[in-house]
């Protein structure tokens, strides 16, 4: 479980708060999506959840963040990292090794996974992310999308209780993006991993997440079940988040026909809704 209580954070060099009075609880086994315009504080919030803030970024930190009962301010980053795995937004600063295999081994070795087990974990992680063929390749020879998959695999291999991902599909094509989200769903449903993901592709995110939190200008302006959040189209438009077309469509449909239409999160649902309304 992640508990964020009255969290306000300002980077040392900055004039304004990157996060302001944020309250958020992510229960065990949840799949939370975070959306918001650029500069809203999404990355900052994830860093607070993983303990990277306050440990690696100086600044003014008020309030409290607890992960799995540990207060992030009172515990070493190393200890917090056993609980929370982070996939960074900037893949190139996340990757430490120069060969794919070594990158995935790194965390496994450091966190003391028994050596008999490491081989299987490595192979499994490569397979799950769909990069078995890249195992021996050098990082420098990979595309941005492939690097992103390596970064994800290196954390999936560690099987943390909580996994936070910052725009993990930013460099991926639609097919691979869906593949990654399908993997996240499997980890979430079958292994009980808590997943928190910041994502620009709201349509895709809405299909997989249970709940959404909307950040704007350092504040959480809405949080709740996916459909509830997406039904507030005026809010999303006001803060400049591009709303999924299906949700826009269903609200337009409701407005124009004057009937009750449930919020749609996929094209299929939109077609279904249209069919029902048109009779």
């Amino acid at each position: 479980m992640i508990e964020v209580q009255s969290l306000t954070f300002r980077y040392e060099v900055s004039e304004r708060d990157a996060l302001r009075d944020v309250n958020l609880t992510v229960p065990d086994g949840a799949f939370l999506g975070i959306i918001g315009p650029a500069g809203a504080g999404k990355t900052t919030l994830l860093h607070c959840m993983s303990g990277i803030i306050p440990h690696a970024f100086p600044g003014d930190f008020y309030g409290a963040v607890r992960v799995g009962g540990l207060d992030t301010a009172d515990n070493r980053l190393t200890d917090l990292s056993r609980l929370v795995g982070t996939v960074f937004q900037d893949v190139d600063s996340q990757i430490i090794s120069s060969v794919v295999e070594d990158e995935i081994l790194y965390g496994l070795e450091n966190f003391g996974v028994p050596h008999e087990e490491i081989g299987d974990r490595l192979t499994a992680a490569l397979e799950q992310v769909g990069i078995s063929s890249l195992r021996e390749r050098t990082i420098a020879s990979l595309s941005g999308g492939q690097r992103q998959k390596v970064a994800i695999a290196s954390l999936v291999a560690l099987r943390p209780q909580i996994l936070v991902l910052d725009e993990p599909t930013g460099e991926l094509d639609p097919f691979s993006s869906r593949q990654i989200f399908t993997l996240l769903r499997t980890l979430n449903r079958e292994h009980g991993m808590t997943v928190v993901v910041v994502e620009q592709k709201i349509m895709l995110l809405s299909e997989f997440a249970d709940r959404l939190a909307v950040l704007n200008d350092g504040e959480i302006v809405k949080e709740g079940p996916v459909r509830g959040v997406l039904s507030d189209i005026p809010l999303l438009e006001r803060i400049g988040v591009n709303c999924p077309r299906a949700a826009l469509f269903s609200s337009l449909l409701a407005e124009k026909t004057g009937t009750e239409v449930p919020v749609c999160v996929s094209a299929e649902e939109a077609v279904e809704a249209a069919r029902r309304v048109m009779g």
Partner: protein
Amino acid sequence: MTDLFQYVPGNSPLHRMNPVTKIALTLSVCVAAFLTDNLFVLLALILFDLMIGVAAGAFRKALAIFRGLFKVSLFLFVLQALFVRRGNRLLWIVTDEGLSTAAGVVLRLLAVCLPLALVLTVTRVSDIAGALVQVLHVPYAYAFTLTTAIRFIPQFMEEMSGIMEAQTARGVEFDTKNIFKKLGLILPLCVPLLISSIRRTGATATAAEVRGFNLRTRASGYKKYGFGLVDLAAVLISAALITGAALIP
């Protein structure tokens, strides 16, 4: 140029050799090159380097390294030839001793640089670090610094060429033949690049920390770096190189 120091996967005896042995072999070539003043011994060392390149399946790369060093070598050669005044004058201010000193400097440079570059072609940086920690008991923090530095070379080059392309598109002529003009164009770009590199190094340190950097001990490594027959052979060759260079006048 970018891939000159890049690891090339393979399965040659050199790839399989213990990284510590590879470093030892490289260093003995260097020691031998500095022990001798005999131009033929230096030539033999270069020949040996090339054979190593062939054995590593990287002959073309070895030649590329030669080409890369050509301009520097030429510069050094001319400089030495002009400034050494001892010996008998052959032509204008050039003396026979000047020529042989100049040849010695250049051959030595080639003999030394080639194995240093080749060792990175046949060894993953992480294996160098791993073996240093496991076999030589080097503290992991030092090994990590080494790997990070070497890992940044291609990244730095990549970003550099990206910026240069962008500037070229805006009409800056980087392909000027005038070396000073070229330096004047490139140097200002290095500053922001260095700053972004340093910032990225900070981020990489955090990335390492959240994946258990502080927990790593000598026993953490999954790969074991053992010694085999190739290593024995390499040690014998190293000894032979140094003795040869020391004994042949």
